[in-house]
């Protein structure tokens, strides 16, 4: 099992006391499989994704990634995990505005110490970015920016891809095209995919789906 979550609890402090965002979550994902995480706004989907990515830590429970419990790891170890093991695709793209497309694509792979120019070339071609490699993010359309973000994640060949509403900022046609690309490339790299989405239509395209409601899996 690539990913296993056991009894995850997460609270957010609020003016009215702690808010129980995640409540006893158990979840697992095998390598090479894809899982959709759906739920209403505020159900805790993104929080769960962030915990898995090592961006935040739970208040209780265990998160086993590749056999290692990442809960309690220090900042440096978590950073190494994000560099080498997981890849993140955000709704807002979050490209680096000061770097051009080629540098953005290569960035995470180089950070992880796994630069592969041949794979990058393939990715750029498959993602339709070969003609815009010297452009800067602000010169791209939203669809192009999300394709760069997907390429950046996959360039490092992570074992687990975490996508948070990757098509949320795109129109339906563009979103579908981007998702098609992402799913096929993830499959080609053999990575597992955990995707947060509002859309049942998109969720149904993945191997499995779970639903979060008020911090619990239902």
């Amino acid at each position, binding site marked *: 099992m690539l990913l296993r979550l056991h009894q995850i609890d997460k609270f957010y402090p609020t003016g009215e006391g702690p808010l129980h965002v995640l409540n006893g979550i158990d979840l697992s994902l095998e390598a090479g499989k894809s899982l959709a995480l759906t739920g209403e706004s505020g159900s805790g989907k993104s929080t769960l994704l962030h915990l898995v990515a090592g961006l935040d830590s739970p208040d209780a429970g265990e998160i086993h990634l590749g056999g290692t419990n990442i809960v309690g790891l220090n900042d440096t170890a978590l*950073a190494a995990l994000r560099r080498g093991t997981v890849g993140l695709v955000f709704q807002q793209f*979050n490209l680096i505005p000061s770097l051009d497309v080629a*540098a953005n694509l290569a960035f995470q792979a180089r*950070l992880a110490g796994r630069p592969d120019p041949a794979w990058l070339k393939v990715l750029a071609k498959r993602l339709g970015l070969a003609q815009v490699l010297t452009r800067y993010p602000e010169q791209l359309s939203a669809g192009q920016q999300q394709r760069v973000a997907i390429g950046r994640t996959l360039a490092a060949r992570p074992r687990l891809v975490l996508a948070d509403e990757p098509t949320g900022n795109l129109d339906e046609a563009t979103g579908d095209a981007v998702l098609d690309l992402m799913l096929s490339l993830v499959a080609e790299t053999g990575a597992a995919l955990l995707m947060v989405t509002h859309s049942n239509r998109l969720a149904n395209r993945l191997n499995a789906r779970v639903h979060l409601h008020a911090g619990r899996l239902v």
Partner: protein
Amino acid sequence: MVWTGLTALLSHWRRRPVQLAMLLLGLSLATALWSAVQAINGEARASYDRAAAILGQDRLAQLVREDGARMDQQEFVRLRRAGWLASPVIEGEMRFGDVRLRVLGIDPLTLPPQAQQVDIAAGDQLLPFITAPGVLYAAPETAARLTEQATPPVRVAEGLPPGTVLTDIGQAQVLLGAKDKISRLLLWPDQPIGRAPLKVTAPGLTLREPSETGDLARLTDSFHLNLTAFGFLAFAVGLFIVHSAIGLAFEQRRQVFRTLRALGLPARVLVLLLIAELLTFALLAGLVGVALGYVVASALLPDVAATLRGLYGADVPGTLSIRPAVWAAGLAIAVIGTLVAAAQSLWRLWHLPLLAAAQPRAWARASERALRAQGVAAMVLLLTAAGIAHFGSGLEAGFALLAALLLGAALALPLVLTGILHLGGRLARGPLAEWFWADTRQQLPGLSLALMALLLALAANVGVSTMVSSFRLTFTGWLDQRLASELYVTARTEAEATAIRDWLAQRSEAVLPIWSIEGRVAGQPAAIYGVADHVTYRDNWPILSAVPEVWDRIATGDGALINEQLARRQELGLGDQITLPGGWRASIVGVYADYGNPIGQVIIGIDTLVQHYPDVSRLRYAIRIAPGKAESLAAGLRAEFGLPAQNVIDQAGIKVFSLKVFERTFNVTAALNVLTLGVAGLAMFASVMTLSGMRLPQLAPVWAMGLTRRHLAWLELSRGLLLAALTMLAAVPVGIALAFVLLAVVNVEAFGWRLPMHLFPGDWARLAALALLAAGLAAAVPAWRLARLSPSDLLKVFAHER
């Protein structure tokens, strides 16, 4: 509608108190330094006006000798007999113990009413005034300085300028050792018709019309212009902060502006509301700024007063008065500065398209076109500076050159830094290094105003410290040459002087007279000294240019040496003829350096001096003796003649005193320099702090991709240090150019002397360390906050639903 709109606009500041504090602080500091200089200048000018108005000189015409020398009392008698209504005045400087004062002697019986400074005729005060031992009238602070000294009775009189005592003319003649001499005659406004013409009665005298500005005001103009220029520089540096803070606040509220417009608030009302908001801030910060300015001025004024006394002989009180004009000017400059700083933002707002897509941080992204335009403006300014340097002349041209140079260099800075950061990016290896350089380049537009302010402050620092250090080096060498004798003695009376000369004849290697008279040369006030034909002068005198055998020609009475300032001001050179007091002429055979002296000086042979001015005071002497014996000889002199300590001074004592005067002269400039640097540091801090809040969207993805917050914080700190280091590097050549202009143009025009420029890399290294420290501190706070930032705050960047 207006109130609702205003509430929405002001809510921005409620949520960002630090940004508001930075805006107000920047404006307050800018106003403070400007107001401090204005308060100091105002105090000094009021003092000059009091001095110029003394004895009604600003309202009464006077008769003086053309050569500026004193006239015989007989001239007064002749004019009175010929029907002229005139009143004699004698004026001179003298020491009461260790207090040096200007003594004014008047004749209360003939004094015109317009010249009556003190009501001497009131009560029973006239008799003690005109009979021995007389009475000295002095301003309260002057009277206080005389309490410990042996003087005639002192009475306090408000309205007299500081450093001046008023007494009866007979008593003044005794005190000044100028029996039967007078300096000038004050003329009553209404003169009898039919009086004998001046040319017949007193052909050596000339009529001087009343003048509202005295010699002091003219003489010190350049000093005050220097201070004003520094005040303005500090103000300009402060405005960079204000411009930056206002620009940022406008950009942050762009969405609010658009919403308010969409909800029906007219653009005109929106702009007026923002102007009202800015004016409120400007007035608030202006009030604080002027108050702070008074604090700064109070701290600086004693040094300014000492400088003006040491350099120009001008007495300015060491305490400040509250002047409404300074408050009004301070508030006006705060308001004008704020509106100038906000003009661009207001213009953009006026043209804000209602439906245009939001462009976060558009203000910080200088388009290439804008950068090119800035480059062209910088080039034009630098070419203008070169043009002024080549074709311009005068102090105003010097300051215009400085302004064009500094502004051109500041505008060119972002362009230069962009080039360097591009180059750095090309040479970088590794993703982090590439990102670091590229990201730094992207931050540049947001930081460029602060960096420009820092460049101005650093360049001013390099320039002024180079000038001061060059001056110090030259001045120290010059003092060694000029003060070659081991001891300097001043006798109290002519009889004592003769006795001292006789006593020293057997006990020293040489006794060199330091005798001088005052008068006017080439229309300027000047002192004429006589020197003995001695190896001391031949070996040591700081000659700048001279004809061959110059000392032989001086000894034979066949020429005169003049100081550099007289040569430059009157465009005199070797071989030119000058007319000296008494109407005789001499040929210029040499020019010498005479730093720190505001007036002209002429040196002739001692015999020639005595021949033309037999009444010259013969009280001061320089003594040559083996250095090891100087101390015992000084002690012997004091013991033998009962001379006060200050009448026998050794070479080291004078040097210490001279260097002290020198250091104080530049204390004010140095203080303003440090304050300007502080303001620039604050600009840097304000910019980094406000930008740091907008940095998270750029840093969070890099953190998410596997960098620790600590690592990112170090990179942020390094970015601040790198930009400060590059700015410092750019500031060095600008500072050297500034020093050159100060030494070769401004000083020559302001003081009349030109100094060689020396470079002091050690000082630059210290300044660089200071700049890096300031930049490090400015960047450290946001970096520290970043390192301690909770992941949930970073995650907010990615949040789209919570």
